[in-house]
């Protein structure tokens, strides 16, 4: 993993932990921090994709996938901009869906790694599955905002800790000499 990426992941993980703790004690402020954080993160990643696409990936066979990735991230980021103006319970649904999708992607990627015999799929599978379970639990507690917050924050804490531990882990390399 690149050093900058490692630092980014650690910083991101710490922010998640702080945001979740704030949310437990002050739901409104915590919710806002998470939403703003999500918006900045999505738009920043989409801009990075666009720059990389126009400078490099558009000349690559199949490089258009980078443009699609950027568009999807930008769309999600722009949509998240509206979350500040709607009731928290509806905004939470969006956040839960984001968590659910992210968990499903992790599970699918882990499954692909398992089928490709990388031997490194278990951790990602467990992480993705935990996100899916927490997202489903959140849907179950939709009527109780307090419990919904606790469950969602538990998910955020798990994600934050996982991000930090992933950043600190030594990455295995498969390289053909």
């Amino acid at each position, binding site marked *: 993993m*690149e050093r900058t990426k490692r630092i980014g992941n650690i910083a991101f993980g710490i922010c998640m932990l702080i945001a979740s703790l704030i949310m437990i004690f002050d739901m409104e402020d915590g919710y806002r921090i998470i939403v703003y954080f999500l918006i900045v993160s999505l738009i920043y990643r989409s801009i990075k994709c666009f720059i*990389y696409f126009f*400078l490099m990936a558009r*000349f690559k*066979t199949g490089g258009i996938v980078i443009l699609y990735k950027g568009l999807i991230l930008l769309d999600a980021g722009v949509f998240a901009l509206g979350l500040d103006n709607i009731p928290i319970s509806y905004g939470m649904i969006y956040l839960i869906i984001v968590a659910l999708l992210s968990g499903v992607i992790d599970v699918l990627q882990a499954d692909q*790694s398992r089928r490709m*015999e990388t031997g490194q799929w278990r951790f990602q599978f467990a992480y993705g599955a935990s996100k899916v379970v927490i997202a489903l639990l959140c849907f179950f507690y939709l009527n109780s905002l307090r419990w919904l917050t606790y469950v969602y924050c538990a998910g955020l804490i798990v994600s934050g800790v996982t991000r930090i531990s992933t950043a600190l882990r030594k990455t295995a*390399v*498969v390289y053909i000499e």
Partner: protein
Amino acid sequence: MTVQEDFHYYATYCAAYIAGYSHEESLRVAYAAQFVDCCTKTFINKVKGPKVAATTQLQTELADTKLDLAGLREITRIWASFHFLPGDLYAHIPRRPKVYMDEYRLICNPNGDLLVDTLRLAKGKGIEACGLAMHVLADTWAHRYFAGTPSFVINDAGEFYEIHRTLDGDEEKKIRFRHNPVAPDDLEKGIFTNSINNYTARSIMNLGHGRAGHLPDYSFAVYRYVPAWMNYEAVIKDNPVDYRNAFCQMIYAMKYLRGEHEKFEKERYDEENIASYSDRIDSILRKRQLSASEDWKAFGEELSGSKIPDFQVDMYVDEYLNAGETEKPSTFLGRFFTAAIAQKGMVSNRIYRSGNKRAGIVMDINTLENMNRRRLLMIANKTGKAGLDGKNKKNR
């Protein structure tokens, strides 16, 4: 036994013998050629040699390398200098940004200007430099179309189809890849190991021919795929033809190094000297097997009438360790290290001078006086840095 040992060790021995070297000299040439795949920082640490002379990286070393600018340059210096010699540092495609062209221009191809420079550099530098140059030359054929730098837009590849040549025509079979590094390739079922698909611009997974697995290293393999840089056009990589060219070019190049030719010319292959062995060589190259070592070994032993020992990576370690500080440079490993530093410096400087900073700036050891040369090796030994950028600027 590594997959490439068949060509870099045994086939190089055969080429050296045909080029006119004695049995003992051919063994040293072959050893040096194969040693390029073994001379890691870890190995150099063990013998307390200059770490800047590393010609390859272990998986663990790659995992430890930080992929920041300095790490990226170190990887590029090693892999572009010894395993993926760029074919054309001044390649031009209209309306492409420089940042893209910097990666594109590192694509490895045979018969480039850098190959001529590599041979010129090795001339008169002894057997070890000759073996090292033979490794570089052979890899320009085996590793063509891939770049010795982590690059998603150059080294990524789509699906691969193996072409089986039969009397009824060509048959294509889709190649299945897996990422289990300990599982051997399954030639029967067409299952090979490659690196993981990764969309990150500078992922190690996109270094060299990782995405093609060991396919470029099998002399029998003929396959079709669409390289990332090829604008949706497919290429057919015909390894038996490429490896034969590599073998004949090695003979020609070694004759040049021995002084039989005044200058090294591109696209010259010594077909004459292998005319009587042509079918034998073709049959070895086209035989479908994981390693052709036994076949090349038998051929080499028939050629020279002498036994070819198996490659032992530690063969010259004691000689180096037991030598005094002043004698070390004249040992086999000492001479190999000097040749490796010179090659890395030359290639990296050529890349830098072409306006491409992907390999950073490296002092060219050949431009230094003997005093500075020793000092350079001392600094490299102490710091273990392949990148001599800052430390030696004052020496210029």
